[in-house]
């Protein structure tokens, strides 16, 4: 089976302006969403308490709300169904610092009389830990972008590095925009999903760049336009195929993986789509836009070779001199 016929070359570069305009529009929309709707920080980053309760029957949400609001601490608690109708999650922004008696115990006491239930999960994150986790998360993102930038710059050229990081920023921005749009709780696992998207999208981009690098070595002409079109077309089946298999498994994770992991898998689903788009339509055209020049690249390669050859010659002479 084949999705794309082997030798067909698509003209991606010719339409790159359209694609990049679409991307810019999406990125801008994401930032607007971020500014207006904002991110819905979850427990991990904001601090607070989450109690998951499973009833042996349908959870009586109204009764639960009444019982809980007896304590003024929990006036603003949110109660939502979680997965099945028997299961609920109670969330509020206060946390307690007592080890002996915590919010979970208090909720358990208040819920007495609402039916047969079991407290299955209690998460409490103090405000200090929340801000620490937020800092760490931000650091993780910045650090991985920088290390990737350095690696790609060493293996390819700085413009490749900048183009791939631009594509990364594109993917992360749009994914975060989607998170804001659908008001998904931003927790540690969402952050993990975003870092995974970064790794994944880069993976795709690097495969195309690798082809471009190869194309440059082989081509006799200095037509970057053509090399890029050719490289994207040749890697198109691979890009689509890997994206599809990954998309499949993440989709199964989203559908069957349980409520706890929904935020994670949803973010990944968006990221895979955006990441695939960016590595086909955005990253490579950017190379050209950043002023990458084959002639230049080849000349520098030749210089490097020359320098290497000279060094070897020197060494040879030196060794001979020694002997």
């Amino acid at each position: 089976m084949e999705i794309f016929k082997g030798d067909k070359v698509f003209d991606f570069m010719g339409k790159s302006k359209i694609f990049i305009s679409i991307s810019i529009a999406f990125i801008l929309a994401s930032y607007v969403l971020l500014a207006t709707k904002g991110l819905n920080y979850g427990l991990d980053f904001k601090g607070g308490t989450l109690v998951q309760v499973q009833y042996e029957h349908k959870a009586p949400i109204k009764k639960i709300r009444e019982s809980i609001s007896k304590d003024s601490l929990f006036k603003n608690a949110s109660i939502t169904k979680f997965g099945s109708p028997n299961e609920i999650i109670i969330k509020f922004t206060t946390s307690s610092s007592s080890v002996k008696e915590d919010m979970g115990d208090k909720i358990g006491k208040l819920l007495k009389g609402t039916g047969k239930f079991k407290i299955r999960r209690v998460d409490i994150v103090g405000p200090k830990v929340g801000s620490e986790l937020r800092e760490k998360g931000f650091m993780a993102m910045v650090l991985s972008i920088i290390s990737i930038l350095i690696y790609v710059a060493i293996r390819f050229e700085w413009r490749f590095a900048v183009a791939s990081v631009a594509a990364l920023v594109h993917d992360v921005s749009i994914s975060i925009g989607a998170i804001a749009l659908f008001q998904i709780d931003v927790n540690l696992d969402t952050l993990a999903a975003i870092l995974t998207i970064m790794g994944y999208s880069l993976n795709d981009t690097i495969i195309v760049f690798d082809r471009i690098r190869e194309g440059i070595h082989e081509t006799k002409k200095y037509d970057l336009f053509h090399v890029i079109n050719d490289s994207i077309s040749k890697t198109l089946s691979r890009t689509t195929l890997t994206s599809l298999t990954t998309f499949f498994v993440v989709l199964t994770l989203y559908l069957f993986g349980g409520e706890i992991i929904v935020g994670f898998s949803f973010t990944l689903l968006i990221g895979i789509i955006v990441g695939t788009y960016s590595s086909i339509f955005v990253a490579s055209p950017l190379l050209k836009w950043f002023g990458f020049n084959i002639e230049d690249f080849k000349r520098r390669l030749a210089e490097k070779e020359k320098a290497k050859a000279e060094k070897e010659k020197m060494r040879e002479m030196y060794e001979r001199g020694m002997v």
Partner: protein
Amino acid sequence: MIVGIVLSFPSFMPSMKGPKIKLGLDLQGGLHMLLGVDTKEAIKSKYKSIASSIKYFTDDNDIVIDALRTKSDGVSFTLLDDTEEKNLNAMLNKIPGLVVNKNKLNYKLTLTKKEIKATKEYAIKQAVDTIRNRLDQFGLSEPTVAKQGKDKILVELPGIKTQAQEKRARELIAKAAHLQLMAVDEKRADQVYNMSKDEATSYGDVILQNARDSKQKYLLKEIPILDGSMLIDAKVGFDRMNQPVINFSLNSEGAKIFGDFTGKNVGHHLAIVLDNKVYSAPVIRERIGGGSGQISGGFSVQEAHDVAIALRSGALLAPVKLLEKRSIGPSLGADSIRESMIALISGFVLVVFFMIIYYGYAGVIADIALMINLFIIIAIMALFGATLTLPGMAGIVLTVGMSVDANVIINERIRELLREGKSVAIAIEKGYANAMSAILDANITTLIAAVVLYAYGTGPIKGFAVTMSIGILASMLTAILGTHGVYQSLMPNIERAKNLKIWFGIKVK
């Protein structure tokens, strides 16, 4: 290169009988807590114990002092008998890290900055040791208690089954277990119900409540006679009424102080105070030697048991507070395992069929590599004792989707070469060679993201980074070495085959 596959076999064999994968708390259920230590309290109690020893010393040597007070920033007192100044100063100089400020005969004692820092650090270390001791005696399997960062304590308790059990463990951890033997202020004892806290302080007294009946109050001398630091053992026993009590014994120093005090104070009351609650205040009938005592007062057997554990493992110098808690019931963990297994299996089946349909036999080979990848991940995790968490499961599911990538890249390269009219043998060899740089670069960049995630992630997220990293490495290994070996060993068959469509899924002219 078939060695590649053969090599991976023995590594997953032991995983079946030998080391088992450790499940994270989010999958097996349990309690995870991050605790902070209130180090200010440690300094306060350090000052208190300095005051205690001053009191003991002056009483013992008949030195008259007055207004002995402890505050959060020091100890103060007035020496009434200036002939004893030299004697007292010599004693104070023996206490390490103490700064003595003197205005005539008014003393103000503080600790040096260095000593304060050391005391705080010791309080944290002591809290870790004490909590570990208590949990070890509590009888749960594999509790983890470790210092995290500069001043936090990580507590992980797998195997907690119920809310009640969890609460009991938390109470045991939080219990200060601060035992004090205190003298009742006999002169003013009858005024206790009309006295304000400040008034009591002005006499150098404190008002404490009875442990069972909070209405009953006692006026006690603020500086205790001795405290739990001199305790060497505590055991549950039963009194004549068959009520559980805690019998404790003191070390020789404590026994001497206790004996001296009781000898001098026959007819007075002695209060037994645990965590600032008075358990009993009997009259001293005679000198009590031997250094043993009893805490009685309406414990349940379980309570008495936990108090004894806490006393034995020592008092917490500083109270601990909850910074973060994640508690997951075992049934929720089991649900998570089931759900992620369903996701894993269905994702796996989808990918396997997709690869076969798209590539034919080449797809089958890629699928075998995928399966071996999964085994390698499990084997490596078991061998290195890594913990599998829910995000870790997600990482494995993701690996199923991503690890066929290397084989996809190779197969696409082979197809390309076949289309150009190269022979099968050359197409396979060159296909692998051409794909190499792309596979390396692409996977190394993903690996960088995973490593950063490991370094900055906490708990379960680390598990995700681990499974993903192992998955990436395993997929590189099986694709570059493993499947290459398979093709080489099958080469005669492939070359004999007339129809390459079955092998690579495309028609070749």
